[in-house]
């Protein structure tokens, strides 16, 4: 219960400090408008932000302290502060780079870009490079079982590490760094393929329903309504049960079934959007003109509707990729997604999760599962930042 009392005391202190801050500000600056019109809530907000910043800075200092128990306790906060600053700095540098290099169009794009979006683009590029060249970057193979199991991350022999394996090895002796790198290829690659498949199915059917209308539209729309009434993760788990019975002991086949299942489930959401966008386009005059010219259905969908529906579909592609990626990661985490021996982040988190309990004594050990989990989080956050920026830009919401 002590901790709750401490929280209440801290809040009371911050509330009091907010009042003092405003009062002193008014007296010292001789009632400048900034302090004169400041509401009490804003004053408390300033103090709260200041306290949080000081606390973060102080924990960073503590994480560097020579006393090992204290340093261990603040290890993760310290790393988080370091990581945040590193990301912010690289995003900032990337934006400067983008503003000065490239064609006039891209330079203009980078000028109005918020830092979050440039961070997102940079992260996506890095992930793409790592995923494509995983075989060349990774020091070891993803299925390669090396000499020592459970080598501690950090590469410090004094603490049970090994400089050959900078992030250590897992419970059966596979290099964690290599598996993380291959995970980019497997997890991101499979998620990407699934999203593309979902878009092929969903967009084609959606446009078809929009152009043809009639009973086909009714049939597809009602079918999609039913499929969307079942929560997607639950439905995916149900279908995976059946798929695992179908696939039997062939693990590769199960991964393939998973791709199809998730693609079908997610294509319902794409269908909704494609149909809605398509319906707006179908009533345009140029579609009418194309129809009168006697163009076929394929021409109508791919040459007339698709180019005009790219912008909303592209934003949806980013969001859909996030959902698919998270679904696959969750399925793998639950043990029914991507199957071993393929390296995959969700599975890695599940396998290494127990090491988190050692965080108080050996923070390096506990960082392995968190690295895999944050690899997932980082990509989805990055994609979401970019999509958010794109939507903000295209909607013209400037407020």
């Amino acid at each position, binding site marked *: 219960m002590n901790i709750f009392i401490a929280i209440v005391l801290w809040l009371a202190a911050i509330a009091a400090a907010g009042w003092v801050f405003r009062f002193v500000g008014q007296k010292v600056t001789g009632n400048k408008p900034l302090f004169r019109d400041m509401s009490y809530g804003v004053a408390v907000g300033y103090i709260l932000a200041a306290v949080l910043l000081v606390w973060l800075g102080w924990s960073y200092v503590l994480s560097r302290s020579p006393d090992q128990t204290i340093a261990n306790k603040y290890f*993760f906060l310290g790393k988080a502060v370091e990581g945040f600053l590193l990301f912010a700095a690289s995003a900032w540098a990337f934006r400067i780079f983008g503003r000065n290099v490239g064609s006039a169009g891209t330079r203009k794009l980078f000028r109005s870009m918020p830092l979050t979006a440039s961070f997102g683009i940079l992260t996506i590029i890095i992930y793409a490079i790592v995923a494509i060249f995983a075989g060349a970057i990774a020091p070891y193979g993803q299925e390669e079982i090396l000499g020592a199991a459970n080598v501690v991350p950090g590469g410090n022999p004094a603490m049970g590490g090994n400089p050959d394996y900078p992030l250590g090895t897992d419970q059966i002796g596979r290099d964690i760094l290599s598996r993380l790198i291959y995970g980019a290829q497997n997890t991101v690659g499979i998620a990407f393929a699934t999203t593309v498949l979902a878009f092929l199915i969903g967009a084609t059917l959606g446009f078809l329903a929009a152009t043809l209308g009639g009973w086909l539209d009714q049939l597809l729309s009602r079918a999609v309504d039913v499929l969307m*009434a079942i929560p997607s993760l639950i439905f995916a788990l149900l279908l995976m049960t*059946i798929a695992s*019975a179908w696939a039997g002991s062939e693990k590769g086949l199960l991964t393939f079934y998973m791709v199809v299942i998730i693609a079908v489930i997610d294509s319902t959401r794409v269908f909704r959007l494609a149909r809605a966008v398509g319906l707006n386009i179908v009533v345009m005059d140029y579609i009418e003109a194309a129809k009168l010219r006697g163009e076929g259905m394929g021409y109508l969908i791919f040459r007339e509707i698709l180019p005009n529906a790219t912008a909303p579909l592209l934003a949806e592609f980013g969001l859909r990729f996030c959902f698919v990626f998270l679904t696959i990661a*969750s399925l793998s985490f639950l043990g*029914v997604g991507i199957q071993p021996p393929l390296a995959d982040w969700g599975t890695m988190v599940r396998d290494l999760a127990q090491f*988190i309990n050692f965080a108080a004594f050996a923070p390096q050990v506990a960082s392995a599962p968190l690295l895999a989990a944050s690899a997932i*989080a980082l990509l989805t956050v990055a994609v979401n930042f970019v999509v958010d920026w794109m939507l903000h830009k295209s909607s013209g919401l400037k407020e």
Partner: protein
Amino acid sequence: MASILRIIAQRLALGIVTLFVVSIVIFAAVNLLPGDFAQLILGQGATPEAVEAIRQDLGLDQPPITRYFQWLAGAVQGDLGNSFAQANFASFAGTDVGTGQGSVAAQIAPRFENTMFLAGVTAVIAVPISITLGVLAALYRNSAFDRTANILTLSSISSPEFFLAYILILFLAVLNPILPSLSNIYDGMELSDRFIKTLLPALTLTLVVTAHMMRMTRAAIINLLASPYIEMARLKGISPMRVIVKHALPNALAPIINVIALNLAYLITGVVVVEVVFVYPGIGQLFVDSVKIRDIPVVQACCLIFAAAYILLNLTADILSIISNPRLRHPK
């Protein structure tokens, strides 16, 4: 008032029809399995006679449509069949007479209660926090506070649940042992103890749900700020806080209530991963365990319950938004 009742009745009927169709989909999906239940229960070395006996016992020799209606009739009465894993062959040998040990309903009932408790605790924490934060973000829009909140909520929406869960475990259970990281709930536990053990999974869900609800609250309020009556209120000289709480919030209530109900629907289904992380004995954990050992009757039943909860909450969202919006209540 008559029209509103009619609309609600319509929606309810639609919901029941959807649930009916969904149950067909679930049943049909499960019946796509190669071989059949009997083969699955007995495994590889089953003799044809034994398989045939179990087929008859489970009624698998009847056509699918008959079996579907039997299953549905049972499900409506609360009898969801027998679990394969718990079934133990006693029930098939006929020695297990009416103990109900292996029945799916007996397995699900206590876990369902636990999941509802978790969802309830989460809702009690998340709803007030998200509405308060949403109002504050709308009040101080485009300030440093708003931008930070925007980045933080976007990050927490897009992170996987298990990432947030492990971060919370790391900081609140391992490094600072404030809360227990395992939620071993059992019968006859004291309520306060149970609450403490539920707190960490509830906080994880809160992080996910709050972000979404807060963003919607902010967006709903900001949408209204351009309307003439808000301008009028401002010109009267009312303080910004009062403008938002007294004038904007009541009109923004419809979308906010809608998003709250949708997030509660998410809570019921999104608990799966969180329950697994914290080993919380809820229905989601049971579902995942059954998926792994292919315990078809349990999977089927859990799926039906999740779908029903999801449909019901979406329905509630619909109905509440109609009730809270006079324009929808009196359609032209």
